[in-house]
């Protein structure tokens, strides 16, 4: 397994890793039976992501990609945030081992799920 220094940094010092009691949207993806579960919490103000946090059960890459996506997403509009792809996450981390690309998928999916949850609970 060859994790970049950036992956190791985000893994060892994850940013925004905490539950969020008063989140506006919560997304949970993954399956603990398969070894990964990721929860993304967002707070939305003016259609922008004002605050974001995560909790992750998973491998080093899962934790690092969760952390990284919170850094990428914060301050973005919801539309911009929805456009974040797994490649964006992997690139910002200076790459991921091929076998670990699906972990960044998980992060992108988690953020998307949180935004969808926000829309469902706030805009209908």
């Amino acid at each position, binding site marked *: 397994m060859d994790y970049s220094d950036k992956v190791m940094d985000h893994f060892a010092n994850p940013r925004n890793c905490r*539950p969020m009691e008063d989140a506006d949207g919560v997304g949970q993806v993954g399956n*603990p*039976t398969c070894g*990964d579960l990721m*929860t993304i919490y967002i707070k939305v103000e003016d259609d922008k992501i004002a605050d974001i946090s995560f*909790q992750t*059960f998973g*491998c*080093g890459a899962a934790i690092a990609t969760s952390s990284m996506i919170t850094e990428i997403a914060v301050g973005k509009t919801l539309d911009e945030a929805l456009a974040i792809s797994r490649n964006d996450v992997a690139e910002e981390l200076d790459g991921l081992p091929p*076998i670990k690309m699906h972990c960044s998928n998980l992060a992108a999916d988690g953020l998307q799920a949180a935004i969808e949850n926000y829309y469902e609970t706030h805009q209908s």
Partner: protein
Amino acid sequence: MYLDNSATTRVNDEVLEEMLPYFNEEFGNPSTLYSIGRESKKALELARQRIADSINAKSDEIIFTSGGSESDNLAIKGIAFKLQKKGRHIITSEIEHPAVKETLYFLESLDFKVTYLPVYENGIIKIEDLKEAITPETILITIMHGNNEIGTLQPIEEIGQIAHDNGIVFHTDAVQTFGKVEIDVEKQNIDLLSVSSHKINGPKGVGAIYIKKGIRLVPLIHGGGQERGIRSGTENVPGIVGFGKAAELACSNLEEHAQKQSKIRDEIIEKVLDKIPEAYLNGDRNQRLPNVINFRFKAIEGESLILLLDANGYQTSTGSACSSKTLEASPVLTALGLDPVDVHGSLRISLSPDTGDFDVDDFVDVIAKSVERLRQMSPLWNN
């Protein structure tokens, strides 16, 4: 601090020293006629004798291979192809190493039938299950001696007895136990036994198979007829010399090494179970290798744990080295009947005779802190 000796070990300095002349001084081909081949030949036979002595075999019952995987493949395919006219049924356990398991899957694709005996929560087969599984078609029982992930020991002497009572060949994968637990092929009723050098502080790429006199099998590697025609190919003389020396060192100090390691093992087990909530030992508490521990911790995933431990200077593993490539949940832990989520939270710690004295309290402290930290990140903890 290297604590992943079930995966591979450091080559012992004495072993390396004994190997060195065979690379560029006594480099002759042991099959040649002239003087320079004679030294290689002698060295080969000394190594063979050392391996034989350490398991109570005769030297012409030892065949050198390229490692444990080749030995397993040779034993299983060799017997299957040899005896396929007699029957096409093989019995094994649910927790074999992939070198056995994948070989059996291959044979299944050729219409052999395989029974996988369950291992229950303690990671050990039941003799009754074995007895029931035997049919008139059964030609081979292949059940490992010590498990590479959880360290549990199978009752091979009894298994061998039952095999022989029923005229069935018995193979055991002793890659993890050789040099760590006493092996006596006579007393333990073993027909075929696989061992590997790099698990006992010998070089990688060398192994051996014990083949009891009178047992015939089809070779896996055909060719020039080396190793009495059972395993062709120019012999890896330096590697074999190193393996012989490593076996001698491991087996002549077996008791002492086992005692030293099981003391550390027990201390780690007690302290971890005591200090960390929802921590469990995988596999039987007593029927286990002196050097292997496997824990599971609720609500965390193993890879992230070993990365944190590595960052703190302790090199450990989640289980088998191979599984890091497939990302699949460990089939061994799954076979114990654990909750699928818990299977992902494993930590294997494996010692070796050259594991120096170390500060168990600090190690346990690092584990406890790392587990706590990952649990704080985990949506599964206290949710």
